[in-house]
């Protein structure tokens, strides 16, 4: 456990010096919050009251994309960066276990993704209240809250799993980044479903998505863990 936190703090320290990561972790969430706020602000007067709630729901969906894209840059760099700098061998020469290394590398990007998503969500609500004076009734329903709070960790876990798997095989950061972006797709599925139904989401939908993500993450993490054995890292990763 202690070694995992040692890894975490080292990675975050490194990340703060990486512009691409800072962009993904700070600029993108702010952009999303801005877009979401703009959307609900525009819908404040026009149309019937139902439309206002629908716009609010669409805005909420943005916060299901964030947990997928925030960790991408961090996760890519935390793997490809080690490869490019040739730092894996000294790291693997320490008594850290394969498991600690894997968990550390995963949490490095999962934790900020979750925290920043929830933070952005809070910021969005705060700014909306400031601008509109209130949150429309029936907008913040239990299914939405369940989605934002329950699905966020699963979405980022899935995204990070895919990215770790891809990065362990990729030769450069750009390729890893592009491939890993495909992890956004599963996150888009609920968005598409929600937007076609144009209604308030149900708890059932959230639960189904949660199970799908759980299974998907388990599969991805299973293969990622197999890639993360010392022997593999030293002799197969290029």
């Amino acid at each position, binding site marked *: 456990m*202690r*070694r995992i936190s*040692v*890894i975490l703090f*080292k990675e975050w*320290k*490194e990340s703060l*010096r*990486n512009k691409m990561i800072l962009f993904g972790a700070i600029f993108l969430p702010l952009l999303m919050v801005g877009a979401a706020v703009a959307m609900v602000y525009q819908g404040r007067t026009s149309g019937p009251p139902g439309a206002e709630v629908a716009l609010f729901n669409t805005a909420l969906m943005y916060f299901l994309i964030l947990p997928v894209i925030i960790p991408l840059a961090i996760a890519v760099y935390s793997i490809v960066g080690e490869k490019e*700098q*040739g*730092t*894996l*061998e*000294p*790291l*693997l*020469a*320490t*008594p*850290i*276990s394969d498991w600690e290394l894997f968990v550390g590398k995963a949490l490095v990007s999962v934790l900020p993704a979750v925290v920043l998503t929830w933070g952005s969500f809070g910021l969005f609500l705060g700014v909306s209240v400031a601008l509109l004076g209130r949150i429309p009734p029936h907008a913040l329903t239990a299914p939405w809250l369940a989605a934002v709070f329950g699905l966020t960790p699963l979405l980022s876990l899935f995204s990070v799993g895919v990215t770790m798997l891809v990065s362990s095989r990729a030769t450069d950061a750009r390729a890893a980044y592009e491939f890993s972006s495909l992890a956004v797709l599963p996150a888009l599925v609920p968005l598409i479903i929600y937007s076609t139904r144009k209604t308030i989401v149900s708890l059932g939908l959230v639960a189904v998505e949660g199970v799908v993500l759980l299974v998907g993450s388990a599969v991805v993490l299973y293969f990622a863990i197999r890639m993360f054995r*010392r*022997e593999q890292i*030293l*002799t197969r990763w290029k």
Partner: protein
Amino acid sequence: MIATEGLTRRFGDLVAVENLDLVVAKGEVFGFLGPNGAGKTTTIRLLSALIAPDAGTGTVAGLELGRQNRAIRQRVGVLTETPGLYKRLSVGDGLLFFARLYSVPDPAREVERYLRLFDLWDRRRDLAGSLSKGMQQKVAIARALVHDPAVLFLDEPTASLDPEAAKVVRDLIETLRTKERTIFLCTHNLDEADRLCDRVALFKRRLIALGSPQELKEGRYGRRTVVHLAHPRPGLEEALRLPFVKKVERVDGKLLVSLADPERQNPVLVRRLVELGAEVQFVNELRYSLEDLYLDLLEGSDAAH
């Protein structure tokens, strides 16, 4: 401190290390020499429990390879072939990271100690990526030492260092030797190996030769005395047939005399030469370098395959 039996490692069809039997004693500085691609780095990886052997067994620091890998990693330090520093971390932070992974009791103090030792304390806040190649190498050596390992594997430690820094490293190796640390040194600098190592192994996929540099050289070449004469007479060789002289050759007007015990026999030899009317200018011992031996033995091993 290190003992292996039949250690073998393949990469696909390629055998990188074959049937390595090795015993390195505690406190020994052991040189591991061989050409590029000989399998030296692979051997270090095997012995530091980074990769698993395909066959064979071994113990390192009294712990069994394959069974106690984690404990082995705690007890050994590895200077890898490339420094591999985190370029976006400061020198101090990078070392602290490793000190903590090794659970060093007072990480900050140890980091300071090694940074001062290598004259890098003033640079502790600089990003590792901004250091020169040689400085990076020194930081990497500090990283290998920060947990005070019982066995230290050094893969070409002085390769990119200036003469002064290389001397710091060599002095450090001497110091560690006196502190009973075991050092496994891979180097292409044969002169360095000759000076530092208690024993050396010449290795190319398998062991070719093993012994102290002195033993190896004498075993192959014996000991010879070179005598420079002002006006060498023909036929002098025949006149020098003393009972203890094993062989006399004339090369470029000099005499090469093979002797078993030159400390005792040279004075007799010189006396004899003077009696014969030769004008002796210089008398030297013919010294072979480890390089001569290295090239000789490798040529032999190539011819044998």
